[in-house]
């Protein structure tokens, strides 16, 4: 493809090669960790210390600074997985397969966090640990979809085949995401009790918005760093018998 300059395509080709990617991951992880911590501390300080107490919800609203970014990440990662799945299926790039499966536990973790923090926010606000409101219900089904991907990958022994299966599942699942979102929201408005959740798009004050965005950004860096960590592991597992891994082991000794 003459449209892409040679240097760029060379970069992509080299990155897609396992030993190069492994080295690249090792170089990036410390930087990503540093940036993550900086953003995290800034966000936490802004959210827990600087931001004012909410007029209606008191200090319990501060859960928003982890609940909302976690929920955003749970969705973002799933969509990213679908993109990687498409790349893996169409171009059969090993790295796309690996990043796909490396992202799943992180997405599942964020989804779990969104559910638990949502529940802890809900108890003082609505009086119960669980409410079948549209968002929690949606997150629950999303969690099952993540767990499905992880179980399927573990269940299939031959890992290249497992990656293909999981790619198909992720693509089918991503089609389900807007459908679930729509159907659950519609279902929830039918059965909604008299309470209107304050979580619904309040006009958020800038002093609350900035820490929220900082936390969201920090979670993105966390995702990259955790995904690369998983990817390194998966790479070594899959390529255990290859030359570059053997060199790696010798260099370690």
């Amino acid at each position: 493809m003459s449209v892409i300059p040679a240097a760029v395509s060379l970069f992509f080709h080299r990155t897609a090669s396992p030993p190069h990617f492994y080295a690249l991951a090792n170089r990036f992880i410390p930087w990503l960790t540093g940036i993550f911590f900086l953003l995290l501390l800034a966000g936490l300080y802004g959210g827990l210390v600087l931001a004012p107490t909410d007029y209606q919800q008191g200090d319990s609203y501060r859960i928003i600074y982890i609940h909302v970014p976690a929920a955003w990440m749970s969705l973002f990662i799933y969509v990213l997985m679908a993109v990687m799945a498409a790349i893996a299926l169409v171009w059969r790039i090993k790295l796309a397969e690996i990043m796909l499966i490396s992202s799943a536990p992180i997405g599942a973790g964020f989804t779990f966090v969104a559910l638990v923090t949502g529940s802890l926010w809900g108890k003082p606000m609505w009086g119960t640990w669980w409410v079948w409101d549209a968002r929690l219900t949606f997150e629950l089904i999303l969690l099952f979809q993540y767990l499905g991907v992880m179980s399927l990958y573990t269940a299939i022994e031959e890992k290249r085949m497992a990656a293909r299966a999981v790619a198909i599942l992720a693509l089918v699942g991503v089609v389900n995401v807007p459908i679930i979102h729509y159907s659950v929201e519609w279902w929830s408005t039918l059965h909604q009790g008299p309470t209107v959740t304050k979580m619904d798009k309040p006009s958020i004050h800038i002093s609350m918005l900035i820490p929220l965005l900082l936390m969201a950004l920090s979670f993105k860096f966390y995702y990259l760093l955790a995904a690369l960590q998983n990817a390194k592991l998966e790479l070594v597992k899959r390529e255990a018998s290859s030359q570059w891994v053997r060199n790696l082991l010798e260099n370690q000794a």
Partner: protein
Amino acid sequence: MSLSKAFFAIIQRDLLLAFRRRAEMANPLLFFVLVVTMFPLAVGAQPHLLQAMAPGVIWVSALLAALLSLDSLFRTDFEDGSLEQMLLSPHFLSILVLGKILAHWLVTGLPLIVAAPLLAMFLGLPESAMGTLWLTLILATPLLSLIGAIGVALTVGLRRGGMILSLLVLPLYVPVLIFASSAVSRAAEGLPVSAQLNILLSMLLAALVLVPLPTAAALKMSVN
């Protein structure tokens, strides 16, 4: 052999094979009725409670019956090698898969529709909801076979694929469940249900178009 001939041939073959084991055809149906029966036994027989729960109970049980019957979609063919033969055929695998799914629905989904009046009686579902119950079953049971087919195709090679199949397929079933049972409840209350039925219909049409391709891809991967 032309594609349409192959399509009908596959349906004919599957129906014939199922008919040879026609005793087994009753199983999903019996399961459906049994599960619905469990609910009054579990929650007590108050008519008002049962009536309120009826649409949900019937639909969850239909879902479970469909899930249980999915295994027969590809398993026997996988085990005796005919699935591999199908993959080698010159015809589009997606079309053959669609034929198999259609045959599967005729054998496992259609009978569930037969059970509807019996279950309506067990749970005290009002007359006004019967028509809607029929309609939702006719629209949604093929949908269940279609969506389930993807899950089966992904897990047919696994030894204990049954549990994983449920984990994969149930999240995909949720919208069907929501709209089907909601249609029946609203009909029981005398409310209009055209919106829900239209949504089910559009999901069915979308599934008819979108399901065969990933299912075929998954089969190709599973068999190798």
